[in-house]
């Protein structure tokens, strides 16, 4: 279990970095939004890797089994909320990208900025 613990957090760090790199370095607006969703997915992994208890199962209480160990329900509730926040921000970001495409004709940030600087 010890190896998995460390590996879980390393994957969280790597995914965080991949997402953050995509948000900063990529100039395509949709690629930035994809990077943002990877960035948020990594945070979900951090929360959910907290809730695992050795030998525990999902926190659904079976009446029959008296001393069953359950995993921690609280991070799961937080992440349920965070996933839906992520999808809402994504939907709004995509709507803005569609409007930018109609207004500027491009969804590359540097081309749109170039158009603005002339105006």
């Amino acid at each position: 279990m010890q190896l998995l613990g460390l590996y879980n957090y390393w994957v969280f760090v790597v995914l965080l970095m991949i997402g953050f790199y995509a948000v900063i370095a990529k100039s395509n607006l949709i690629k930035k939004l994809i990077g943002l969703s990877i960035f948020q997915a990594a945070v979900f992994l951090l929360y959910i890797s907290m809730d695992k208890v050795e030998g525990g199962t999902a926190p659904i209480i079976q009446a029959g089994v008296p001393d069953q160990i359950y995993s921690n329900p609280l991070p799961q509730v937080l992440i349920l909320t965070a996933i839906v926040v992520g999808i809402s921000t994504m939907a709004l970001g995509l709507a803005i990208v569609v409007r930018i495409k109609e207004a500027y004709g491009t969804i590359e940030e540097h081309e749109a900025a170039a158009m603005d600087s002339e105006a």
Partner: protein
Amino acid sequence: MTILLAVFLLTMLVITAVAIVRTRDLFAAVMLLGIFSLLMAANFFVLDAADVALTEAAVGAGISTVLFLGALALTAARERESGDSRWLPLVVVVIMAATVVYATFDKPALGDPNAPVHQHVAPWYLSETPRLIDIPNVVTAVLGSYRGYDTLGEVFVVFTAGIAVLFLLGSGRPGELFSRPPDELSTGGLKHHLIPRVVGKLLIPFIILFGLYVQFHGEYGPGGGFQAGAIIAAGVILYALLEGETRALAALPESALKVMVIGGALLYTLVGVVCMLMGGNFLDYSVLSTNSVAGQQLGIILIEAGVGLAVTGVLLSIFHAFAARATA
């Protein structure tokens, strides 16, 4: 044994993420993002988070892929080389990685039962729920009742996203929600794809039925309003893709979508207000009926229905807003 599976899934996650960032073709990136979400859902399941796995699969893989494809249809499908330097972002990213790795030194090991996370609030939830709310799925109990205010905020985040997309992509004409009137929308659907239409028509009723099962089974097993809303919306979107948007809008017209969006958000808030009027605090369901446990269960069922309504209405409105937008 599950360690091997978990390590495999986590490595696949990283590989998919790298592939997503490197690929130039945006359609491929969106498809890989769907695979990324499914792998993440499998990972959550390995870590005993059944509810979250269902949500991540339904919302992350299903709806977000549809939204990205809807947006890609209206914008360019290939990413152009920006050409500016790669080094500054890399340096910033490496510095951040170092700080986060620094944070993982003293953290409790994975799954160790006496980690502080499992000491304070969680055992109370696990021990008190059978007595106070008496429903098997503790996650739904915490989501609906103990932290019901969070979920209310959650419904209004979805509601805000819905009206924001309608504000940006909606029609300028009063009374009409979407930018092209129903008669101009695509009526064809996948006309010459006979087989998908037949199979689709066969499956859609069962998808909607499964969505309703997830909605009302939320107290006893993984499920709840968000997952149910996403599944039912996915079913109706599949119908729209197969039969064309006009048929889908005939099935669930704009007025129905408006009623669902407003009804869901208002139902949740009014349940809270009724609790206030009956003497308890906001969202305190135990005052809803003489027996407090029955009141809690009634409250949770009502708010989950509100969440399901709102999420279905909003996701469908967002899909129709994207689909009805004239391809410039």
